[in-house]
Protein backbone atom coordinates (compact mmCIF):
# COMPACT_ATOMS: atom_id res chain seq x y z
CA UNK A 1 0.00 0.00 0.00
CA UNK A 2 2.51 2.53 1.15
CA UNK A 3 5.05 1.00 -1.15
CA UNK A 4 3.30 1.98 -4.33
CA UNK A 5 3.17 5.73 -3.96
CA UNK A 6 6.17 6.13 -1.68
CA UNK A 7 8.95 6.53 -4.23
CA UNK A 8 7.06 9.36 -5.92
CA UNK A 9 5.83 11.09 -2.80
CA UNK A 10 9.01 11.27 -0.78
CA UNK A 11 12.19 11.77 -2.70
CA UNK A 12 14.08 11.98 0.59
CA UNK A 13 15.77 9.00 2.19
CA UNK A 14 13.40 6.10 2.78
CA UNK A 15 13.14 4.81 6.27
CA UNK A 16 12.77 1.08 6.57
CA UNK A 17 10.94 -0.09 9.65
CA UNK A 18 11.61 -3.73 10.27
CA UNK A 19 10.30 -5.89 13.06
CA UNK A 20 12.76 -6.65 15.78
CA UNK A 21 14.18 -10.17 15.95
CA UNK A 22 12.13 -12.49 18.06
CA UNK A 23 15.15 -13.91 19.75
CA UNK A 24 15.10 -11.00 22.18
CA UNK A 25 11.94 -12.38 23.72
CA UNK A 26 13.19 -15.89 24.35
CA UNK A 27 16.50 -15.74 26.11
CA UNK A 28 16.97 -16.32 29.78
CA UNK A 29 13.35 -16.33 30.88
CA UNK A 30 12.24 -19.05 28.49
CA UNK A 31 12.42 -21.78 31.10
CA UNK A 32 10.47 -19.71 33.65
CA UNK A 33 7.79 -18.87 31.10
CA UNK A 34 7.44 -22.47 29.99
CA UNK A 35 7.21 -23.57 33.61
CA UNK A 36 4.43 -21.01 34.08
CA UNK A 37 2.55 -22.45 31.12
CA UNK A 38 2.91 -25.96 32.52
CA UNK A 39 1.57 -24.78 35.89
CA UNK A 40 -1.30 -22.97 34.21
CA UNK A 41 -2.18 -26.09 32.26
CA UNK A 42 -2.39 -28.15 35.45
CA UNK A 43 -6.14 -27.59 36.12
CA UNK A 44 -7.28 -28.62 32.63
CA UNK A 45 -4.84 -31.52 32.63
CA UNK A 46 -6.27 -32.70 35.93
CA UNK A 47 -9.84 -32.44 34.63
CA UNK A 48 -8.96 -34.37 31.49
CA UNK A 49 -7.25 -37.13 33.46
CA UNK A 50 -10.26 -37.30 35.78
CA UNK A 51 -12.63 -37.54 32.80
CA UNK A 52 -10.75 -39.67 30.34
CA UNK A 53 -8.58 -41.71 32.74
CA UNK A 54 -5.70 -43.58 31.15
CA UNK A 55 -6.65 -42.37 27.68
CA UNK A 56 -5.63 -38.87 28.72
CA UNK A 57 -2.47 -40.06 30.44
CA UNK A 58 -1.49 -42.02 27.35
CA UNK A 59 -2.06 -39.10 24.96
CA UNK A 60 -0.12 -36.71 27.20
CA UNK A 61 2.75 -39.17 27.56
CA UNK A 62 2.94 -39.67 23.79
CA UNK A 63 2.82 -35.94 23.12
CA UNK A 64 5.39 -34.88 25.70
CA UNK A 65 7.80 -37.76 25.10
CA UNK A 66 7.34 -37.55 21.32
CA UNK A 67 8.04 -33.83 21.15
CA UNK A 68 11.06 -34.12 23.45
CA UNK A 69 12.46 -37.03 21.48
CA UNK A 70 12.11 -35.29 18.13
CA UNK A 71 13.49 -32.05 19.55
CA UNK A 72 16.57 -33.92 20.73
CA UNK A 73 16.91 -35.76 17.43
CA UNK A 74 16.70 -32.61 15.31
CA UNK A 75 19.11 -30.73 17.59
CA UNK A 76 21.55 -33.59 17.14
CA UNK A 77 21.08 -33.43 13.36
CA UNK A 78 21.84 -29.72 13.31
CA UNK A 79 24.72 -30.13 15.71
CA UNK A 80 23.16 -27.92 18.37
CA UNK A 81 23.22 -28.46 22.14
CA UNK A 82 20.24 -30.22 23.65
CA UNK A 83 17.37 -27.72 23.98
CA UNK A 84 15.24 -29.82 26.31
CA UNK A 85 16.14 -27.75 29.35
CA UNK A 86 13.96 -24.85 28.28
CA UNK A 87 10.88 -27.11 28.57
CA UNK A 88 9.43 -25.75 25.35
CA UNK A 89 9.20 -29.22 23.82
CA UNK A 90 7.23 -30.39 26.84
CA UNK A 91 4.81 -27.47 26.53
CA UNK A 92 4.32 -28.11 22.81
CA UNK A 93 3.75 -31.79 23.47
CA UNK A 94 1.29 -31.15 26.29
CA UNK A 95 -0.74 -28.61 24.30
CA UNK A 96 -0.77 -30.91 21.29
CA UNK A 97 -1.94 -33.84 23.42
CA UNK A 98 -4.61 -31.74 25.13
CA UNK A 99 -5.96 -30.71 21.74
CA UNK A 100 -6.55 -34.32 20.62
CA UNK A 101 -9.63 -36.46 21.23
CA UNK A 102 -9.25 -39.20 23.82
CA UNK A 103 -9.86 -41.82 21.15
CA UNK A 104 -7.01 -40.82 18.83
CA UNK A 105 -4.78 -43.81 17.99
CA UNK A 106 -1.20 -43.70 19.31
CA UNK A 107 0.35 -42.76 15.99
CA UNK A 108 -1.69 -39.54 15.82
CA UNK A 109 0.17 -38.05 18.76
CA UNK A 110 3.48 -39.29 17.42
CA UNK A 111 3.01 -37.91 13.90
CA UNK A 112 1.64 -34.72 15.42
CA UNK A 113 4.77 -34.38 17.56
CA UNK A 114 7.06 -35.03 14.59
CA UNK A 115 5.35 -32.36 12.52
CA UNK A 116 4.95 -29.91 15.40
CA UNK A 117 8.64 -30.00 16.25
CA UNK A 118 10.04 -30.67 12.77
CA UNK A 119 7.91 -28.49 10.54
CA UNK A 120 6.51 -26.16 13.15
CA UNK A 121 9.78 -25.25 14.81
CA UNK A 122 13.06 -26.71 13.62
CA UNK A 123 12.84 -25.68 9.98
CA UNK A 124 12.45 -22.07 11.11
CA UNK A 125 15.58 -22.24 13.22
CA UNK A 126 14.14 -23.38 16.51
CA UNK A 127 12.36 -21.76 19.42
CA UNK A 128 11.79 -18.04 19.15
CA UNK A 129 11.98 -17.96 15.37
CA UNK A 130 9.00 -20.02 14.33
CA UNK A 131 6.18 -18.19 12.56
CA UNK A 132 3.40 -20.60 13.46
CA UNK A 133 2.50 -22.14 16.79
CA UNK A 134 4.20 -25.57 16.63
CA UNK A 135 1.45 -27.44 18.47
CA UNK A 136 -1.16 -26.03 16.10
CA UNK A 137 0.92 -26.96 13.04
CA UNK A 138 1.03 -30.51 14.35
CA UNK A 139 -2.67 -30.47 15.20
CA UNK A 140 -3.67 -29.12 11.79
CA UNK A 141 -1.48 -31.68 10.06
CA UNK A 142 -2.97 -34.67 11.86
CA UNK A 143 -6.46 -33.23 11.50
CA UNK A 144 -6.17 -33.26 7.72
CA UNK A 145 -4.01 -36.37 7.72
CA UNK A 146 -6.23 -38.73 9.73
CA UNK A 147 -9.76 -37.38 9.25
CA UNK A 148 -11.35 -40.60 10.41
CA UNK A 149 -9.46 -40.58 13.71
CA UNK A 150 -10.02 -36.89 14.44
CA UNK A 151 -13.37 -35.98 12.91
CA UNK A 152 -16.47 -35.23 14.92
CA UNK A 153 -17.43 -38.90 14.93
CA UNK A 154 -14.16 -40.00 16.49
CA UNK A 155 -15.05 -38.33 19.78
CA UNK A 156 -18.07 -40.55 20.18
CA UNK A 157 -16.41 -43.92 19.94
CA UNK A 158 -17.65 -46.42 22.41
CA UNK A 159 -15.01 -47.03 25.01
CA UNK A 160 -14.44 -47.48 28.69
CA UNK A 161 -14.12 -44.61 31.12
CA UNK A 162 -16.91 -42.27 32.01
CA UNK A 163 -20.20 -42.20 30.13
CA UNK A 164 -19.56 -38.76 28.67
CA UNK A 165 -17.05 -40.12 26.22
CA UNK A 166 -19.79 -41.44 23.99
CA UNK A 167 -21.72 -38.17 23.79
CA UNK A 168 -21.39 -35.82 20.86
CA UNK A 169 -19.16 -32.86 21.69
CA UNK A 170 -21.19 -29.77 22.60
CA UNK A 171 -20.34 -27.97 19.35
CA UNK A 172 -21.12 -30.98 17.18
CA UNK A 173 -24.39 -31.49 18.99
CA UNK A 174 -25.32 -27.85 18.53
CA UNK A 175 -24.29 -27.69 14.90
CA UNK A 176 -25.58 -30.98 13.58
CA UNK A 177 -28.44 -31.84 15.88
CA UNK A 178 -29.46 -28.41 17.12
CA UNK A 179 -29.15 -29.55 20.72
CA UNK A 180 -27.68 -27.35 23.37
CA UNK A 181 -25.90 -28.47 26.48
CA UNK A 182 -26.73 -27.23 29.99
CA UNK A 183 -24.25 -24.60 31.04
CA UNK A 184 -22.90 -26.07 34.26
CA UNK A 185 -21.22 -29.15 32.71
CA UNK A 186 -19.67 -26.88 30.09
CA UNK A 187 -18.11 -24.74 32.79
CA UNK A 188 -16.87 -27.59 34.94
CA UNK A 189 -15.90 -29.69 32.00
CA UNK A 190 -17.98 -32.83 32.34
CA UNK A 191 -18.65 -32.96 28.60
CA UNK A 192 -16.98 -34.69 25.71
CA UNK A 193 -14.35 -32.89 23.68
CA UNK A 194 -10.64 -32.66 23.07
CA UNK A 195 -8.76 -33.55 26.23
CA UNK A 196 -7.95 -30.05 27.41
CA UNK A 197 -10.87 -28.03 26.14
CA UNK A 198 -13.76 -29.43 28.16
CA UNK A 199 -13.47 -27.36 31.32
CA UNK A 200 -14.08 -23.64 30.83
CA UNK A 201 -13.31 -22.88 34.47
CA UNK A 202 -10.04 -24.80 34.27
CA UNK A 203 -9.01 -22.76 31.23
CA UNK A 204 -9.98 -19.51 32.99
CA UNK A 205 -8.10 -20.41 36.12
CA UNK A 206 -4.90 -21.27 34.28
CA UNK A 207 -5.34 -18.35 31.91
CA UNK A 208 -5.72 -15.78 34.64
CA UNK A 209 -2.60 -17.14 36.31
CA UNK A 210 -0.67 -16.74 33.04
CA UNK A 211 -1.92 -13.19 32.60
CA UNK A 212 -1.11 -12.22 36.18
CA UNK A 213 2.38 -13.62 35.79
CA UNK A 214 2.64 -11.60 32.54
CA UNK A 215 3.71 -14.75 30.75
CA UNK A 216 0.67 -14.22 28.54
CA UNK A 217 -0.35 -10.81 27.26
CA UNK A 218 -3.88 -10.21 28.62
CA UNK A 219 -4.95 -8.21 25.59
CA UNK A 220 -4.94 -11.26 23.35
CA UNK A 221 -7.37 -13.51 25.27
CA UNK A 222 -9.52 -10.50 26.09
CA UNK A 223 -9.69 -9.56 22.40
CA UNK A 224 -10.60 -13.12 21.45
CA UNK A 225 -13.30 -13.41 24.11
CA UNK A 226 -14.73 -9.97 23.36
CA UNK A 227 -14.95 -10.64 19.63
CA UNK A 228 -16.44 -14.08 20.15
CA UNK A 229 -18.98 -12.77 22.66
CA UNK A 230 -20.01 -9.92 20.37
CA UNK A 231 -20.39 -12.13 17.31
CA UNK A 232 -22.07 -14.86 19.35
CA UNK A 233 -24.52 -12.29 20.65
CA UNK A 234 -25.29 -11.00 17.17
CA UNK A 235 -25.72 -14.55 15.94
CA UNK A 236 -28.16 -15.26 18.77
CA UNK A 237 -30.16 -12.14 18.00
CA UNK A 238 -30.27 -12.96 14.30
CA UNK A 239 -31.16 -16.63 14.67
CA UNK A 240 -32.00 -17.49 18.27
CA UNK A 241 -31.17 -21.09 19.05
CA UNK A 242 -32.95 -22.52 22.04
CA UNK A 243 -30.74 -22.46 25.09
CA UNK A 244 -27.52 -21.66 23.23
CA UNK A 245 -26.36 -18.39 24.78
CA UNK A 246 -23.27 -16.27 24.46
CA UNK A 247 -21.80 -18.19 27.40
CA UNK A 248 -22.31 -21.40 25.49
CA UNK A 249 -20.42 -19.92 22.55
CA UNK A 250 -17.52 -19.13 24.86
CA UNK A 251 -17.50 -22.23 27.01
CA UNK A 252 -18.32 -24.84 24.40
CA UNK A 253 -15.40 -25.97 22.27
CA UNK A 254 -11.78 -24.95 22.36
CA UNK A 255 -12.20 -21.17 22.35
CA UNK A 256 -10.96 -20.51 25.90
CA UNK A 257 -8.23 -23.15 25.71
CA UNK A 258 -7.02 -21.55 22.49
CA UNK A 259 -7.40 -18.02 23.76
CA UNK A 260 -5.29 -18.52 26.89
CA UNK A 261 -2.77 -21.21 26.03
CA UNK A 262 -2.29 -21.17 22.28
CA UNK A 263 -2.93 -17.69 20.93
CA UNK A 264 -0.80 -16.11 23.66
CA UNK A 265 2.39 -17.83 22.55
CA UNK A 266 4.66 -14.74 22.58
CA UNK A 267 6.80 -15.97 19.68
CA UNK A 268 3.97 -16.19 17.18
CA UNK A 269 1.83 -13.23 18.30
CA UNK A 270 2.31 -9.51 17.63
CA UNK A 271 4.65 -7.35 19.68
CA UNK A 272 2.69 -4.12 20.14
CA UNK A 273 -0.45 -3.59 22.26
CA UNK A 274 -2.40 -2.43 19.22
CA UNK A 275 -1.16 -5.45 17.28
CA UNK A 276 -2.27 -7.74 20.10
CA UNK A 277 -5.78 -6.33 19.99
CA UNK A 278 -5.97 -6.78 16.22
CA UNK A 279 -4.61 -10.31 16.54
CA UNK A 280 -6.94 -11.30 19.38
CA UNK A 281 -10.05 -9.83 17.82
CA UNK A 282 -9.03 -11.40 14.52
CA UNK A 283 -8.78 -14.86 16.06
CA UNK A 284 -12.06 -14.50 17.95
CA UNK A 285 -13.91 -13.32 14.87
CA UNK A 286 -12.36 -16.00 12.69
CA UNK A 287 -13.24 -18.76 15.17
CA UNK A 288 -16.87 -17.64 15.26
CA UNK A 289 -16.98 -17.32 11.47
CA UNK A 290 -15.53 -20.79 10.94
CA UNK A 291 -17.80 -22.33 13.57
CA UNK A 292 -20.83 -20.83 11.89
CA UNK A 293 -19.97 -21.46 8.26
CA UNK A 294 -17.17 -23.98 7.76
CA UNK A 295 -17.62 -27.70 7.43
CA UNK A 296 -15.71 -28.28 10.67
CA UNK A 297 -17.43 -27.91 14.06
CA UNK A 298 -14.50 -25.97 15.54
CA UNK A 299 -12.22 -23.34 14.02
CA UNK A 300 -9.56 -22.56 16.61
CA UNK A 301 -6.72 -24.38 14.86
CA UNK A 302 -7.24 -22.70 11.50
CA UNK A 303 -7.92 -19.31 13.08
CA UNK A 304 -4.71 -19.38 15.13
CA UNK A 305 -2.61 -20.51 12.16
CA UNK A 306 -4.10 -17.84 9.88
CA UNK A 307 -3.49 -15.05 12.37
CA UNK A 308 0.00 -16.44 13.11
CA UNK A 309 0.63 -16.09 9.41
CA UNK A 310 -0.64 -12.52 9.46
CA UNK A 311 1.39 -11.58 12.54
CA UNK A 312 4.41 -10.27 10.60
CA UNK A 313 2.04 -7.99 8.67
CA UNK A 314 0.29 -6.85 11.85
CA UNK A 315 3.67 -6.08 13.41
CA UNK A 316 4.75 -4.26 10.31
CA UNK A 317 1.78 -1.92 10.38
CA UNK A 318 1.59 -1.38 14.14
CA UNK A 319 5.21 -0.84 15.08
CA UNK A 320 5.13 2.73 16.41
CA UNK A 321 6.54 5.53 14.29
CA UNK A 322 9.47 7.48 15.72
CA UNK A 323 8.48 10.18 18.24
CA UNK A 324 7.27 13.27 16.40
CA UNK A 325 5.85 11.33 13.50
CA UNK A 326 7.53 10.21 10.30
CA UNK A 327 10.39 12.26 8.95
CA UNK A 328 8.87 14.94 6.71
CA UNK A 329 9.99 15.08 3.13
CA UNK A 330 12.61 17.73 2.46
CA UNK A 331 11.59 20.50 0.07
Amino acid sequence: MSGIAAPEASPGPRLEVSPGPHIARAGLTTRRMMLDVLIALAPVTAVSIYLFRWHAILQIAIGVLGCSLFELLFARMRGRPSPLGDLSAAVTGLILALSLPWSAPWYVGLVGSLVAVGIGKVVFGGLGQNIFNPAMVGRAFVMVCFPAALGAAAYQMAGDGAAIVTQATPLTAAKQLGQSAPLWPLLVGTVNGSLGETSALGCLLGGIYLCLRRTAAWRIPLGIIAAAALLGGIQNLAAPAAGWTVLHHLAGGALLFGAFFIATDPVTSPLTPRGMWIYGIGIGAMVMFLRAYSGYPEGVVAAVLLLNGATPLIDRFTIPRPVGGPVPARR
Partner: protein
Amino acid sequence: MDWIGSLVLIAVGAMLINNFVLYYFVGICPFIGVSRRVDMAFGMGLAVTFVISIAALLSWAFTYFLLRPNAPLAVAVWEAVSPGSAANVDLSILSYIIYIFVIASSVQFVEMYVRKFFPALYKSFGIFLPLITTNCAILFACLEILKRVAGAKPAEVWGLHQALTLALFGGLGFTLAIVLMAGIREELDFADVPVHLRGAGITFIVAGILALAFMGFTGVDRSLAAVLLR
Protein backbone atom coordinates in the same frame (compact mmCIF):
# COMPACT_ATOMS: atom_id res chain seq x y z
CA MET B 1 -31.00 -13.53 -4.71
CA ASP B 2 -30.24 -16.65 -6.64
CA TRP B 3 -27.47 -15.07 -8.64
CA ILE B 4 -25.91 -13.46 -5.56
CA GLY B 5 -25.72 -16.91 -4.01
CA SER B 6 -23.98 -18.29 -7.05
CA LEU B 7 -21.52 -15.40 -7.08
CA VAL B 8 -20.74 -15.85 -3.38
CA LEU B 9 -20.08 -19.51 -4.03
CA ILE B 10 -17.65 -18.64 -6.79
CA ALA B 11 -16.01 -15.74 -4.93
CA VAL B 12 -15.40 -17.52 -1.63
CA GLY B 13 -14.34 -20.66 -3.45
CA ALA B 14 -11.81 -18.87 -5.63
CA MET B 15 -10.38 -16.71 -2.89
CA LEU B 16 -10.27 -18.89 0.21
CA ILE B 17 -11.20 -22.53 -0.25
CA ASN B 18 -9.73 -23.27 -3.63
CA ASN B 19 -7.16 -20.51 -3.47
CA PHE B 20 -5.32 -20.31 -6.79
CA VAL B 21 -1.88 -20.70 -5.22
CA LEU B 22 -2.53 -22.74 -2.13
CA TYR B 23 -5.01 -25.19 -3.63
CA TYR B 24 -4.48 -25.22 -7.41
CA PHE B 25 -0.76 -24.37 -7.36
CA VAL B 26 -1.07 -21.85 -10.18
CA GLY B 27 0.99 -18.69 -10.00
CA ILE B 28 3.70 -20.46 -8.01
CA CYS B 29 6.57 -18.78 -9.87
CA PRO B 30 5.77 -15.22 -8.73
CA PHE B 31 4.63 -16.62 -5.39
CA ILE B 32 8.17 -17.88 -4.83
CA GLY B 33 10.02 -15.24 -6.82
CA VAL B 34 8.36 -11.95 -5.84
CA SER B 35 7.51 -12.66 -2.21
CA ARG B 36 10.62 -11.27 -0.53
CA ARG B 37 9.16 -7.84 0.21
CA VAL B 38 5.63 -6.95 1.20
CA ASP B 39 5.27 -3.90 -1.05
CA MET B 40 6.58 -5.80 -4.09
CA ALA B 41 4.26 -8.70 -3.32
CA PHE B 42 1.31 -6.36 -3.04
CA GLY B 43 2.17 -4.75 -6.37
CA MET B 44 2.48 -8.15 -8.01
CA GLY B 45 -0.82 -9.26 -6.54
CA LEU B 46 -2.61 -6.19 -7.86
CA ALA B 47 -1.00 -6.54 -11.26
CA VAL B 48 -2.12 -10.16 -11.49
CA THR B 49 -5.64 -9.32 -10.32
CA PHE B 50 -5.87 -6.59 -12.94
CA VAL B 51 -4.61 -8.68 -15.84
CA ILE B 52 -6.57 -11.75 -14.81
CA SER B 53 -9.81 -9.75 -14.85
CA ILE B 54 -9.13 -8.38 -18.31
CA ALA B 55 -8.09 -11.78 -19.63
CA ALA B 56 -11.24 -13.30 -18.12
CA LEU B 57 -13.41 -10.71 -19.83
CA LEU B 58 -11.82 -11.39 -23.21
CA SER B 59 -11.64 -15.15 -22.88
CA TRP B 60 -15.24 -15.33 -21.73
CA ALA B 61 -16.29 -13.36 -24.80
CA PHE B 62 -14.19 -15.52 -27.13
CA THR B 63 -15.44 -18.73 -25.57
CA TYR B 64 -19.07 -17.72 -25.44
CA PHE B 65 -19.34 -16.30 -28.93
CA LEU B 66 -16.74 -18.23 -30.88
CA LEU B 67 -15.16 -21.27 -29.28
CA ARG B 68 -17.84 -23.33 -27.59
CA PRO B 69 -19.69 -25.92 -29.67
CA ASN B 70 -22.23 -24.15 -31.88
CA ALA B 71 -21.18 -20.73 -30.65
CA PRO B 72 -23.27 -17.99 -32.31
CA LEU B 73 -20.46 -16.18 -34.06
CA ALA B 74 -18.85 -19.34 -35.39
CA VAL B 75 -22.19 -20.56 -36.69
CA ALA B 76 -22.84 -17.21 -38.38
CA VAL B 77 -19.47 -17.30 -40.13
CA TRP B 78 -19.99 -20.88 -41.27
CA GLU B 79 -23.44 -20.03 -42.56
CA ALA B 80 -22.06 -17.06 -44.46
CA VAL B 81 -19.29 -19.08 -46.08
CA SER B 82 -21.31 -22.14 -47.00
CA PRO B 83 -24.96 -22.15 -46.02
CA GLY B 84 -26.17 -25.31 -44.35
CA SER B 85 -22.80 -26.51 -43.15
CA ALA B 86 -23.04 -25.09 -39.63
CA ALA B 87 -24.82 -28.02 -38.07
CA ASN B 88 -21.94 -28.98 -35.84
CA VAL B 89 -19.39 -26.21 -35.61
CA ASP B 90 -16.87 -26.74 -32.81
CA LEU B 91 -13.81 -24.52 -32.68
CA SER B 92 -12.82 -25.49 -29.16
CA ILE B 93 -9.62 -27.07 -30.40
CA LEU B 94 -8.34 -23.53 -30.94
CA SER B 95 -9.07 -22.50 -27.34
CA TYR B 96 -5.58 -22.85 -25.90
CA ILE B 97 -3.91 -20.96 -28.73
CA ILE B 98 -6.45 -18.17 -28.57
CA TYR B 99 -6.21 -17.87 -24.78
CA ILE B 100 -2.46 -17.58 -24.77
CA PHE B 101 -2.68 -14.80 -27.33
CA VAL B 102 -5.45 -13.10 -25.39
CA ILE B 103 -3.24 -13.16 -22.31
CA ALA B 104 -0.14 -11.96 -24.11
CA SER B 105 -1.96 -9.12 -25.79
CA SER B 106 -3.86 -8.04 -22.69
CA VAL B 107 -0.57 -7.88 -20.80
CA GLN B 108 0.86 -5.73 -23.61
CA PHE B 109 -2.21 -3.53 -23.61
CA VAL B 110 -2.26 -3.10 -19.84
CA GLU B 111 1.42 -2.27 -19.86
CA MET B 112 0.98 0.42 -22.53
CA TYR B 113 -2.10 1.86 -20.90
CA VAL B 114 -0.63 2.01 -17.42
CA ARG B 115 2.63 3.46 -18.68
CA LYS B 116 0.81 6.20 -20.54
CA PHE B 117 -1.82 7.20 -18.00
CA PHE B 118 -0.47 6.15 -14.61
CA PRO B 119 3.29 6.63 -14.73
CA ALA B 120 3.58 6.43 -10.94
CA LEU B 121 1.74 3.13 -10.87
CA TYR B 122 3.81 1.91 -13.79
CA LYS B 123 6.99 2.71 -11.94
CA SER B 124 5.95 0.53 -9.01
CA PHE B 125 4.39 -2.45 -10.71
CA GLY B 126 5.17 -2.12 -14.39
CA ILE B 127 8.18 -4.36 -13.95
CA PHE B 128 5.92 -7.27 -13.07
CA LEU B 129 3.76 -7.03 -16.14
CA PRO B 130 5.99 -8.86 -18.64
CA LEU B 131 6.43 -11.65 -16.07
CA ILE B 132 2.70 -12.16 -15.89
CA THR B 133 2.41 -13.52 -19.43
CA THR B 134 3.83 -16.80 -18.27
CA ASN B 135 1.88 -16.73 -15.01
CA CYS B 136 -0.20 -19.85 -15.11
CA ALA B 137 -2.86 -18.34 -12.84
CA ILE B 138 -4.19 -16.33 -15.76
CA LEU B 139 -4.35 -19.21 -18.21
CA PHE B 140 -5.87 -21.28 -15.44
CA ALA B 141 -8.69 -18.76 -14.99
CA CYS B 142 -9.32 -18.87 -18.75
CA LEU B 143 -9.43 -22.68 -18.64
CA GLU B 144 -11.90 -22.67 -15.75
CA ILE B 145 -14.10 -20.33 -17.77
CA LEU B 146 -13.78 -22.64 -20.78
CA LYS B 147 -14.92 -25.55 -18.63
CA ARG B 148 -17.92 -23.63 -17.33
CA VAL B 149 -18.92 -22.20 -20.70
CA ALA B 150 -18.11 -24.89 -23.25
CA GLY B 151 -18.44 -28.00 -21.11
CA ALA B 152 -21.50 -27.12 -19.04
CA LYS B 153 -25.14 -27.98 -19.45
CA PRO B 154 -27.13 -25.20 -21.14
CA ALA B 155 -28.71 -24.10 -17.86
CA GLU B 156 -25.37 -23.89 -16.08
CA VAL B 157 -23.36 -21.97 -18.67
CA TRP B 158 -21.52 -19.16 -16.96
CA GLY B 159 -22.38 -15.57 -17.77
CA LEU B 160 -19.86 -12.77 -17.84
CA HIS B 161 -20.59 -11.79 -14.24
CA GLN B 162 -19.63 -15.24 -13.03
CA ALA B 163 -16.44 -15.29 -15.09
CA LEU B 164 -15.43 -11.88 -13.78
CA THR B 165 -16.18 -12.87 -10.18
CA LEU B 166 -13.92 -15.90 -10.51
CA ALA B 167 -11.13 -13.80 -11.97
CA LEU B 168 -11.39 -10.92 -9.51
CA PHE B 169 -11.59 -13.04 -6.40
CA GLY B 170 -9.04 -15.53 -7.70
CA GLY B 171 -6.69 -12.59 -8.15
CA LEU B 172 -7.50 -11.24 -4.69
CA GLY B 173 -6.87 -14.67 -3.20
CA PHE B 174 -3.52 -14.73 -4.96
CA THR B 175 -2.78 -11.27 -3.54
CA LEU B 176 -3.73 -12.41 -0.04
CA ALA B 177 -1.50 -15.47 -0.24
CA ILE B 178 1.52 -13.66 -1.68
CA VAL B 179 1.29 -10.76 0.78
CA LEU B 180 1.02 -13.14 3.76
CA MET B 181 4.00 -15.03 2.39
CA ALA B 182 6.02 -11.85 1.92
CA GLY B 183 5.35 -10.73 5.48
CA ILE B 184 6.52 -14.11 6.75
CA ARG B 185 9.60 -14.11 4.56
CA GLU B 186 10.63 -10.64 5.76
CA GLU B 187 10.42 -12.02 9.27
CA LEU B 188 12.43 -15.10 8.29
CA ASP B 189 15.34 -12.91 7.24
CA PHE B 190 16.20 -12.84 10.93
CA ALA B 191 15.66 -16.54 11.54
CA ASP B 192 18.28 -19.27 11.73
CA VAL B 193 16.71 -21.42 9.02
CA PRO B 194 18.81 -24.53 8.23
CA VAL B 195 21.05 -23.51 5.38
CA HIS B 196 19.79 -26.06 2.85
CA LEU B 197 16.20 -25.02 3.36
CA ARG B 198 16.78 -21.29 2.84
CA GLY B 199 15.02 -19.68 -0.07
CA ALA B 200 12.61 -21.90 -1.94
CA GLY B 201 12.62 -24.77 0.58
CA ILE B 202 11.34 -22.82 3.55
CA THR B 203 8.96 -20.90 1.32
CA PHE B 204 7.30 -24.14 0.24
CA ILE B 205 7.07 -25.32 3.83
CA VAL B 206 5.41 -22.06 4.89
CA ALA B 207 3.07 -22.40 1.91
CA GLY B 208 2.23 -25.90 3.11
CA ILE B 209 1.31 -24.61 6.56
CA LEU B 210 -0.76 -21.80 5.03
CA ALA B 211 -2.49 -24.38 2.83
CA LEU B 212 -3.28 -26.40 5.97
CA ALA B 213 -4.75 -23.29 7.60
CA PHE B 214 -6.80 -22.44 4.52
CA MET B 215 -8.28 -25.94 4.58
CA GLY B 216 -10.18 -24.70 7.62
CA PHE B 217 -12.36 -22.74 5.20
CA THR B 218 -13.71 -25.92 3.60
CA GLY B 219 -17.47 -25.69 3.36
CA VAL B 220 -17.70 -21.94 3.95
CA ASP B 221 -18.80 -21.22 0.37
CA ARG B 222 -21.57 -23.76 0.66
CA SER B 223 -22.94 -22.43 3.97
CA LEU B 224 -22.72 -18.78 2.95
CA ALA B 225 -24.50 -19.45 -0.32
CA ALA B 226 -27.15 -21.43 1.54
CA VAL B 227 -27.71 -18.50 3.92
CA LEU B 228 -28.05 -16.09 1.01
CA LEU B 229 -30.31 -18.39 -0.97
CA ARG B 230 -32.65 -18.93 1.95
